[in-house]
């Protein structure tokens, strides 16, 4: 049997195990380990199991995950999230789905301080989901918004997705970051439009609140002061060169803890439960990431990406055809691969084809990252959906996937718009870099 065939069978088995409710991480471990053993050796599989487990668990970049969750937990337990949403409710709560739109805007803001979609979805999930529950928002809408809104994390700079793309393709990180800004804002607006559409047809998904007067508005906004202050401090500290985006997570967590202790809304007992919950969620997320890294060598050894690349080159489809086909391949791959693993596996094969066709690499980069985001929320392996599930254990995974679907459609629309109007991508980088 050919290596590619074994790879395909592995993917098939993965689907079956997932549908049989075997935990996502266990499934990927089992399939990855078995695949590497068959295509190479059990020695190799054990070696990769050990090194990926330890390397990811000790990765200096992934520290943001537990720290941002801790920040979100403390903000919720001390009532800071509550006051933030009280303020949002006072401002736009009178509109149907107003809090969902506020959450999307919050995701966009958080994306400016976090380079990772996982961290965005986790933190916003901890902060926002309980609050939208409080105002009787439908869980399908609230979880869908957080899962989809979280993906803005890698489109709006800073973005680990663009950094990896830039290094894999020798493109400018600065240009890519700038190129992500307008599409990021556009996608954010498209999400809000979708929320309005959903709530127009299903008013009970995001019930409208009472009108508030100016006094009530200003009182609510003042109440949100501390948490807004922490967020501004954190963003300011990054752009002011005081700390890195990774360290920002610790600064954010430390600040909310300090505010909590000073205002006596946080006790040691509460802090302890926040930390404990943070490490449990971290374990969930990290185990999935480690397992996803075993699928990667399995796919590489199966040579499926190479075969797909050769097939694509032989088709001679021209610019638009090739582009659409590549994005469709990303869409399919995104259903069962982790996003960054996918970039590493496919870019070395697709990128030369892109260059040959004279396609702008920055434009292609943004399209790629956007498609990769769609993979983050598409079943069965939608990492961001799992993230939201880990924050909202009582919501069925199927409901989250259903909740995400309308936003997924908006991302398709966004891809179409970017393909039709490359200026949206290229305007900022070309103006700033010439």
């Amino acid at each position: 049997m050919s290596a590619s065939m074994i790879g395909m069978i592995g993917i098939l088995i993965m689907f079956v195990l997932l549908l049989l409710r075997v935990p996502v991480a266990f499934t990927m471990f089992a399939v990855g380990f078995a695949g590497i053993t068959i295509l190479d050796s059990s020695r190799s599989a054990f070696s990769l199991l050990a090194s990926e487990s330890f390397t990811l668990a000790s990765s200096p970049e992934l520290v943001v995950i537990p720290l941002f969750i801790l920040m979100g937990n403390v903000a919720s337990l001390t009532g800071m999230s509550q006051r933030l949403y009280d303020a949002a409710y006072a401002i736009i709560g009178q509109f149907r789905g107003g809090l969902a739109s506020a959450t999307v805007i919050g995701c966009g803001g958080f994306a400016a301080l976090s380079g990772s979609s996982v961290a965005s979805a986790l933190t916003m999930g901890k902060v926002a989901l309980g609050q939208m529950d409080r105002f009787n928002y439908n869980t399908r809408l609230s979880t869908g918004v957080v899962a989809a809104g979280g993906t803005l994390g890698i489109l709006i700079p800073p973005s680990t997705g663009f950094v990896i793309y830039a290094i894999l393709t020798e493109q400018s990180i600065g240009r890519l970051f700038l190129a992500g800004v307008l599409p990021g804002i556009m996608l954010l607006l498209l999400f809000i439009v979708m929320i309005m559409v959903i709530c127009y047809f299903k008013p009970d998904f995001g019930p409208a609140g009472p009108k508030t007067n100016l006094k009530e508005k200003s009182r609510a906004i003042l109440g949100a002061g501390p948490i807004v202050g922490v967020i501004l401090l954190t963003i300011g500290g990054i752009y002011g060169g005081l700390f890195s985006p990774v360290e920002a997570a610790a600064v954010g967590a430390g600040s909310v803890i300090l505010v909590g202790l000073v205002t006596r809304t946080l006790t040691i007992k509460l802090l302890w439960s926040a930390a404990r919950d943070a490490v449990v969620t971290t374990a969930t997320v990290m185990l999935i990431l480690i397992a996803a890294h075993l699928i990667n060598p399995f796919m590489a050894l199966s040579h499926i990406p190479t075969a797909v690349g050769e097939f694509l080159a032989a088709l001679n489809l021209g610019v638009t055809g090739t582009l659409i086909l590549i994005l469709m391949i990303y869409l399919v791959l995104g259903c069962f691969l982790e996003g960054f693993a996918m970039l590493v596996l496919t870019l070395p094969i697709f990128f030369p084809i892109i260059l040959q066709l004279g396609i702008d690499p920055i434009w292609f980069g943004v399209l790629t990252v956007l498609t990769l985001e769609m993979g983050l929320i598409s079943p069965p392996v939608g990492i961001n959906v799992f993230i939201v599930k880990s924050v909202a254990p009582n919501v069925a995974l199927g409901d989250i996937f259903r909740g995400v679907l309308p936003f997924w459609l908006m991302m398709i629309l966004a891809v179409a718009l970017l393909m039709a109007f490359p200026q949206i991508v290229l305007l900022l980088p070309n103006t700033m870099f010439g």
Partner: protein
Amino acid sequence: EELKFANFTPPFHTINASVIEKLNNDLSAATNGELTVRGYHGGELGSGPAEQYIRVLQGATDMAWGLPGYTSSQFGKTMIAELPGAIPEDMPGYQALWRAFDDNLSQEFPGTKPLALWTSEPNIFIMRNKVIRTPQDLNGLKVRVAGSTAAEVAKALGATPVQMPISQVYNAMQTGLIDGVITGASTLKDFKLDEVADALTLGAPLGRLTFFTVLNAQVYGDLSAEQRAAVDAASGMELSKSAEDAWLVTANAALAAAQKDSSNAIVELTDAEKEAFTKAVSGVVNSYVNSVDGDDALAAMQGN
């Protein structure tokens, strides 16, 4: 037989043509295509530089390349070659390393057959908004360093050494979190530092980086006698030279591009200016060599 070569960098990285493709060509030519090498790029067989040696040792891949600096405790004596002034400026680093290999360095590579050992272009100051001419110019500046000896060098020069993954350096320089980095010119291209740096200082004794390419010893032992002979012929000095030359070409191209950009301040230190730096770092070199009992290794590298 196809040997797997794990490469944690992208396929167009300097390593590919100068080592991976070259090995593949030389081995297939010598064995009539019986023995070939296939590169797995971008960390397909496991990400990051730190675990590459272990992966070869454990058989996750047959061959890999890496930097001793990421696991410096394993490579105490090899790391001497990274020290400022350890290898005379006009001497190729790979020659120094191989001269010391048999007697002094081989025990630092257990379970593998080193196919190539080489060094990078000399480290330079890559700075943003700060032009360095004297050690005093570094006073209080935050400079990113890779390992413990580099940290000592930075401290000896009066800078504040900052530890961070190379992938975060771009952002950190842009926001002013760090003022610069001590590393080779090839990072201008490999990590896009050319976009954020605007001042380079060349000629200060700041050491260089070392690299290895290793083959699993058991895999080597299981090859036929002819195939082993082909591996022997394709590796060693010649392969190391190919790698080091390619590194220098990449670095020179990156430097030339930086020089063309008129917004960059490029300082080439005079001999007198170099002297101040040499004096400042000399203590670091001696104390490191003593700490690893490396007098013989250093002497062998220097050809004494």
